[in-house]
């Protein structure tokens, strides 16, 4: 993370990862579009091409910055979103020691935490199935991502959806996003109360 003199975050590198067909590239596109078009940020999205975009681990990379993005790829991401074990195994080592790891609770079994890495988990695929279609697991994940990272406004994310999800599924996608977002807020809340409790206990 590059922090400017006033202590604001000026650049963030994010990797969305999973397996082909989970809508991983969409995750990068939606977040990038939301940031670039509605949150007044510079957001450059790149994706991996080739055989790995079809089936096995696939990923999209997003560089977010207040200034123009000069180096278009991520180097040491602050945030890693993993929706499959294979993708997690492949990309976890590059995550920063103080990074943020966001996983699908049911699909990724993380190793014991490394450095100061923070882990947030959401049963995205399970929630999506409960909503009627596992294809929207990526939107559950994006909702959760939006809540826990506070990197992008939730309204911007929803605004970014038309054109990137099929019109007839727009509502369902928004529902999935909201589900993930609420779960994210809840997670943060629990974290806070947990922390307070721990603090109290310590005292």
């Amino acid at each position, binding site marked *: 993370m590059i922090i400017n003199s006033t202590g604001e975050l000026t650049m963030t590198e994010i990797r969305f990862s999973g397996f082909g067909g989970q809508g991983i590239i969409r995750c*990068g*596109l939606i977040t*990038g*579009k939301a940031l*670039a*078009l509605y949150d007044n940020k*510079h*957001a*450059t*999205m*790149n*994706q991996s*091409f*080739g055989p790995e975009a079809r089936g096995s681990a696939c990923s999209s990379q997003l560089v977010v910055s207040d200034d*123009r*993005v*000069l*180096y*278009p*790829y991520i180097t040491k991401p602050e945030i890693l979103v993993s929706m499959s074990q294979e993708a997690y195994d492949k990309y976890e080592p590059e995550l920063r020691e103080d990074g943020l790891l966001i996983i699908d609770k049911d699909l990724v079994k993380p190793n014991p935490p490394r450095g100061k890495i923070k882990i947030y988990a959401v049963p995205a695929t399970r929630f999506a199935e409960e909503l009627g279609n596992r294809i929207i697991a990526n939107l559950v994940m994006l909702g959760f991502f939006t809540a826990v990272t506070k990197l992008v406004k939730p309204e911007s994310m929803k605004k*970014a959806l038309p054109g990137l999800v099929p019109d007839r599924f727009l509502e369902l996608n928004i529902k999935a996003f909201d589900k993930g977002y609420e779960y994210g807020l809840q997670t943060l809340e629990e974290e806070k109360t947990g922390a307070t409790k721990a603090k109290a206990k310590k005292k």
Partner: protein
Amino acid sequence: MKKVKADPKGVLTGVHYLDGDFAIAEGALAAGCRFFGGYPITPSTETAERFSARIPKVGGVFIQMEDELGSIAALIGAVWGGVKAMTVTSGPGFSLMQENIGLACMMETPLVIANVQRGGPSTGLPTLAGQQDIMQARWGSHGDYEVIALAPDSPQECFDLTIEAFNLAEIYRVPTFIMTDECVGHMHEKVVIPPAEEIEVVERKWYAGPKEEYLPYKLDKDGIPFMIKAGDGYRFHTTGLTHDERGYPVINAECQDWCVRHLCDKIRKNADKIIRLEEDEIDTAEVVVLSYGITSRVATRAVQKARQEGIKVGTLRLITVWPFPEKRIRELASLVGSFVVPEINYGQIVYEVERCAAGQAKVIHVPHCGGWVHNPDDIYNAIKEAVK
């Protein structure tokens, strides 16, 4: 030169999140391109896909040809049929097009080819970036000729420069290339498409004089012949053979001299009008980093780091790669100590810089054989070496 406002039918006004390939298709539609003949090749296919989806609603033709030889031939035919035409390709396809790029030059056919460069030679790295066709763009076809080539560094510039490419092609009646690369082609960023009335489009240099006086290759005052299209009753002839003003083959050294000089000079003599550069802090610079396309963005990161250490670094970005800004480089060579030239190849534009620097300034090449962009530190180290 007749400038008109863009036809709103092709202009997707608004703020978009597009990759470079898509932005090229939108730029072409905004510029009035209504014919696309192409053959699928990674990493350029998205442009063809976008065009094929959009053109039926705009009014025009998309045809997927049987190969790149057919694509470029169809383009030349389409332009003589009266429309603006383009294709998109990558290294292997660009190689296949070279012979007919020569025909387009010889027939003075305005058209646009976007080359989304990947690593070569041969099949090389289909899905990864390169800047290895830069010299091929200049010298790929046989014989002496000149072309125009532009190098966008972002999806926004892919849009803007595609319009510019069409305009330059029409003004000079020459094939014009958009030499982008896989990184920019597949990179999504914000792209602002202005309203049609804010986009200036150059019309073809149509002939309007008496029919019987028309000669296809008679030079106008500005050195560029007027154009017509098939079906208007001129019953004209054009050929890939060396030809005279009438477009008739004349197979001798004298006509060759006239013909070839014209093809080259119409670009060389207008180089100042064509060339666009972006310079930064160049007046006080001890060292100038010269780059183009995606590499210039990566280089800027290295430059920022060097400047923080007090090194006087200027940057020069080639927006127009061909014609090469010889005059400016010669001028700078006597003012600055050295040039640092990063590019995603094993040495191409650096030779042009060396030629123009002619020993007056040190030239340090920062090669990269393709597959990725430079590590900014490699460029930074070259800057350090330059001021040592």
